[in-house]
Structures are given as C-alpha cells and as structure tokens.
C-alpha cells in the first residue's frame, strides 16, 4: 500500500482475511445495524446485497448509466444519502463493468461524503488491472479525512492470479480492524498460514508479471471490444480496468430465434449458452437488466472462437 498508493498503515490497522470477500463481508457486519442503509452503485458485484441482508441492513441501489461509464455521479450520491445511510460500497475498478474512477472523480465523491456520517468500503481488488496510461487512485489516498472513513479491501486473487489461495486484506482505522479481528476470530480464525506465506512472496517479490499480464489483457480487451461492437445492435462502454466487458444487448429484447424468445438478459445468456456454447452472466445478476457480462480472462483463442460464434448466432435473430 505504501509502495503503490503512498498509504501508511500500522500493523494494527491491517487484517489478513480469507479472500477479499471475507474482508467486505466482515466490514459490513462490523458497521451495519438492522435497518441501516448501504448505498451500492449498480451494476454491483453479486455478493454485496446478500452481505448487507445478512447484517439485516438495507441495500440502496443507485443505477449508474452506460453513458456515464457506469460511474457514480456526486450529485446523485448526495441525493441518495439519508440519515440512515451508514456505508457506501465502492467497487473500483468495478466488477462487472470494469469502470475505474479517476482521481478527480473520487475527489468529487469525497466532497459529497465530507460532511456526511458514513463509512466507505472501497473494494480495490482489481486495482492493478487498469490499462494504458490510466492511473489508479485508492480512495483512502484522497485525503486524511477519507482515510479515516475508508475501509480499504484488497487481495492477491486477481493481481497475482492466486484465486485459490484465498488471501485478502483490509486496511482501516484501528477500531474497525479491531472489530474485524474479533468477528474473524470467532467465524473462521486466521487465513491459512500456508496461503499467507505464499501471499507475502507475491506482494514482496518481483512485480513484472503484472505488466506482462496487463499487456495480454489489454490485447484481449481491444480485440473482443472491437468484435462485439461491430455487431449491429450491441453497444459497449470500453472500461479502464478489470477483465470484463459489459455490453448493452437490450436491442435484442422482444426478438426471437426459433423457439427462443428473448425478453431479458437472462434469456439472452441462456440463448448464447445453448446455441453457441458461450457462458456469460446476465446483467440482471448485477442489478443491470439489459446488459451482459463477458469475462476476457480466458485465452485469445477462446475469445476469437467466441466472437465467431456470437456473430453467427446473433445475425439470425429477428
């Protein structure tokens, strides 16, 4: 955090978790009371609303727009904040859209939050997966007040392709980390010492593997984005980060292919799964009907084949 984001944390402001998921889950549990509101920009990562329900909190979704690059606008955030708002969950870069906030955009969100009584859970698990000249900014680094309010969640799963090791971490003010520690000590104990040893080497070791991975991802993103936007009826925001594309496929709704009627993103996903053997996740799972999530964390070969199949099938829809 110091090396990459100029953030200073003490050991008692950091907890290692069983995946970033446990970091977010326990952060919600540590802050949200029954009936408290948690603002979640939509499209959102599938687990957030369930985590909030498990804390008996209330998810308040803010629908972001494709034309805004699926980013939360400060004036819309301001309207959504009520006296019951306890937490804002920001997934930056975002799963499922890949959208990533610039420093300026985060500053304008911080301006709104400044005088409000809320925590920010900043899920930065895709931090390293940003492309080109885009510079990632951690929400905790905006200013010292925001650092006091931010529960920063990260992990080794995405950056180092170490999903199966289940190591995440949280950096936050001491009292929050203390609470997270208590909760974790009763729910799972520590993350495995073996996995922690592996994570140390990944974080401290040579980092060139990341830039190699990024170049490869960038190529795949360019390729697949070009391919799908060349299909009539599909529009797609080209995101700054993560490894997802989140195209708008709503122009196909109401149309049919043989016996298949496409009335929503679920139908669309089922159709391409059955007819073209392409697995994608319907936008409705992320609270964004009309869209579909493609992951390009797969080989270029697979992407090429997928593009061919997709075109072949979609042209038949009328």
């Amino acid at each position, binding site marked *: 955090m110091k090396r990459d984001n100029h953030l200073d944390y003490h050991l008692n402001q950091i907890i290692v978790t*069983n*995946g970033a*998921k*446990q970091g977010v*889950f326990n952060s919600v*549990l*540590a*802050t*949200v*009371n*029954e009936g*408290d509101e948690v603002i979640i920009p939509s499209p959102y990562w599938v*687990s957030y609303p*369930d*985590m909030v329900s*498990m*804390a*008996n909190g209330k998810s308040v979704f803010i629908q972001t727009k494709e034309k805004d690059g699926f980013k939360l606008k400060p004036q819309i955030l301001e309207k959504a904040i009520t006296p019951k708002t*306890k937490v804002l969950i920001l997934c930056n870069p975002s799963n499922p859209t890949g959208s990533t906030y610039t420093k300026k955009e985060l500053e304008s969100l911080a301006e709104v939050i400044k005088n409000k*009584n*809320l*925590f920010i859970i900043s899920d930065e698990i895709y931090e390293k997966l940003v492309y080109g000249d885009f510079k990632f900014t951690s929400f905790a680094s905006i200013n010292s007040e925001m650092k006091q*309010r931010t529960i920063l969640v990260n992990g080794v799963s995405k950056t180092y392709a*170490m*999903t*199966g*090791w*289940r190591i995440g971490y949280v950096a936050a003010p001491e*009292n*929050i980390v*203390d*609470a997270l*520690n*208590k*909760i974790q*000590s*009763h*729910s*799972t*104990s*520590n*993350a*495995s*010492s*073996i*996995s922690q040893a592996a994570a140390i080497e990944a974080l401290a070791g040579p980092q060139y593997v990341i830039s190699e991975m990024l170049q490869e991802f960038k190529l795949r993103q360019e390729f697949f984005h070009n391919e799908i936007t060349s299909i009539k009826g599909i529009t797609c925001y080209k995101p700054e980060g993560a490894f997802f594309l989140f195209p708008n496929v709503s122009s196909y709704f109401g149309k049919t292919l043989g016996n298949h009627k496409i009335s929503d993103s679920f139908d669309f996903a089922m159709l391409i799964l059955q007819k073209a053997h392409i697995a994608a996740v319907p936008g409705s799972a992320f609270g964004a009907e009309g869209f579909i999530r493609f992951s390009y964390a797969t080989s270029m070969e697979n992407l090429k084949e997928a593009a061919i199949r997709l075109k072949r099938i979609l042209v038949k829809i009328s």
Partner: protein
Amino acid sequence: MSLSLIAKSIKASPTLKLNEKFAILKEKGDPVIHLGGGEPKSRMPMDAILATVAHVNTGEVRYAPADGIPALKQAIIRYTEEFYERKVKPENVIASGGAKQAIMVALQAILNPQEEVLFPAPYWVSYPDMAKLIGAIPVAVLPEDGTFYPRLKDITDRVGSYTKAVIINSPNNPTGAMYSEEFIADVVEFCEKKDLWLIMDDIYHRLIFDGKKPINCYKYAKKFDENSKIILINGVSKQYAMTGFRIGWAVGNKKVIEAMSNIQGHQTSGPSVLLQKAAVAALNGIQSGVESLRTTLENNRNVMIDLLNSFEGVKVTKPDGTFYCLADFSAYEKDSNKLSEFLIDKVQVLTVPGKEFGLDGHLRLSYCGTIKDIQDGIERMKWALDPNSANELYIGDRKLVRDWS
C-alpha cells in the same frame, strides 16, 4: 460514525489473543511455557504434506466450489460411514474454513435474531460470540450437580419457546469430559421430540482415553436423511495436527447444507483448494498418526493429572479426551483472569482463564505440548502459588525471587 451493535457486543477470541501474547513474549526471548495451546505438536500426515506440495507444483491454485471440492466431500462421506455408520450424499456435506466456520455458518443458517441456542457449560469460547454475531441469544447451562457431565434435566430445564438449537461438544473443550453414551442418546431423542437442531461438535471424537470408543450420535436418531436435524461437525485440525490448514466440515440435511453453502459462498467462497487437497490426503491416507497422537496425549494427561493431584489446593477432574483439563484454583484465587495474568507475569506460564469458558475460579491447562513443558509449567505454577515455596526459582540461568505472598 460508530461500529455496529454486533461488533460492539462481541469480544476477541481469548485463546487466539493468548497465542499472540505468547508469540510476542517468545520473540522477546522470554522463557515462556504455553499451557494455553489448542493444537497438537505432532507432525501432520506425510500424505497431506505430499498432496499439498504436488498441488502447489501444478501452479494452478484456483477457485473451487464454495461448499468443497468433490474429492473432499467423498472423503468426508467415507469418514462418516466409517465412524457414524451412515451413508450420506455429497449434498449432505459442506467443507468449511475450519470446524469453526462450519459451526458459524450452521448457526447463521438456522437461527433468527432473538432465538436461543443452548449449550452445556463450561463451553468452547466461541459459541457465545458466534450466537451474538447473528443477534441470537446464547444460553449456557452449567450442570446442577457441580460436575462437568450434564444430565438431560440440565438441558430440558432451560429449553423454552425461543430455543432453536442445542450444541453438544463431547469430548469437551475445555474440560476434556466425554459425555456418557446415555446422555448423548437422551439429547438426540429429546431434540428430535422437541424438533430442535442439534449441533454435534465432534472435533475431538477420536482423541479419547482409557479404552473409550467414539460415540455415534446417529445410533439414537429416529429421523433420517432429509428429516434429520442433526448437524455433525468435524475437521482435520486436531486429529491430524493440521490446525493451520483450516479445514473442517459439516454433515446435515440437504436443505440446511444448501443454506450453509450459500452463506459461506458470500462469506469466504469456501476454503482454499490447496488445503482441501491436503485434507483429502489426510483423511484417505495412513491413519497411524492419529493413534500415536492419541497415545501421546493420554500419556501427557496422566503426567499432568498426577502433578495436579499432588498440587495442594487444586481440584481437577480427570479428562476422558481432548488435550485439556479445567482445574479448580479457586482456593488460591477466585478471579481466573487475575490468576492467569499473575502466572504469566510472575513465572511466564500461559494458561486460559476459566471465566472465558463460563466457569470462573478455574484455569484451562493444555497437555498438547511436551512432557517437559507440563512438568516445568506446573512446577513454576506451584512455586508461584504455594506460600510454602522456596524463595527463589531458577529458569535456566534466570533467577526469580518470590516477592509476593
């Protein structure tokens, strides 16, 4: 901005906190003896080590199903058949991040806020806080006859309309008491009659002494398969000395396991595939390590109990299993937190205050370490507490002087 009520209501696991304290003192070079530990010192099975290394060497340590990899489920199915004579299906099994997570997600799956979960005291430190984590009410039941062996009446007296579940941990942490077969039969029957969930925390079931045999709770169950409300908990931590691998499991009806899997899926995504592979190898591999650990622990227990029996003022119940005993030190000090602090400060022996397990005036002493630790540890405690002790004690070349009375 304040923390949630739940975060405020729970306290950190005292045993894990003690481990931290031990590590700090040890690093300072202090000659501290850990009689508060909760893990065997034996080697883990070679099969498990090899399986871990083999999987690491594939370079592919990826996401796995949230409820456990099929191979581990199969190993658990076989284990359940061997020890519980019950053939279950994969959908009746979930692998978790330690038996702790298995219990946690089980409670999350079955309890609503304000509902009660009942368990005998002394109890494992995490049960009350786990209940509080979900807004439920923990009800600890201390046996009325003053022993560590509850009777059915102790339970039935406290069951009310809010009671939803009972947790039985036998052999018990912290007392080492293994409840009688008759008691287990009674509880199983009672819970079925009252339609209560019964969580059987069997994590120590093979670590038992004096020729005792593990008890199979299903033997007394009349409800089977999808009607069964028994949730059986176990894991590899204790019996295979694999605490750091964090692999436990639960067996239960399909519906509850499905709910637990969903919760676990959002909570942690399930345990690491690498660690699951190690658990498969431990469960399916050579079992001689379990028996040798059991024999070592039985021998250690004998040494510790003999020493405590000759410790004037201390009363102790001989444990039937685990690697703990809960000894009564109230003749010296009624406040177990104070006593534990005193022992670590004066003679560098780490013990766990009985208060954390719901019984003040007692200390939990572990005999999972070496015989030397047990002997030196008890000797130092005796020196510190017995007013007739010599004025000086040597630890290595350090001289301690008794400047208290």
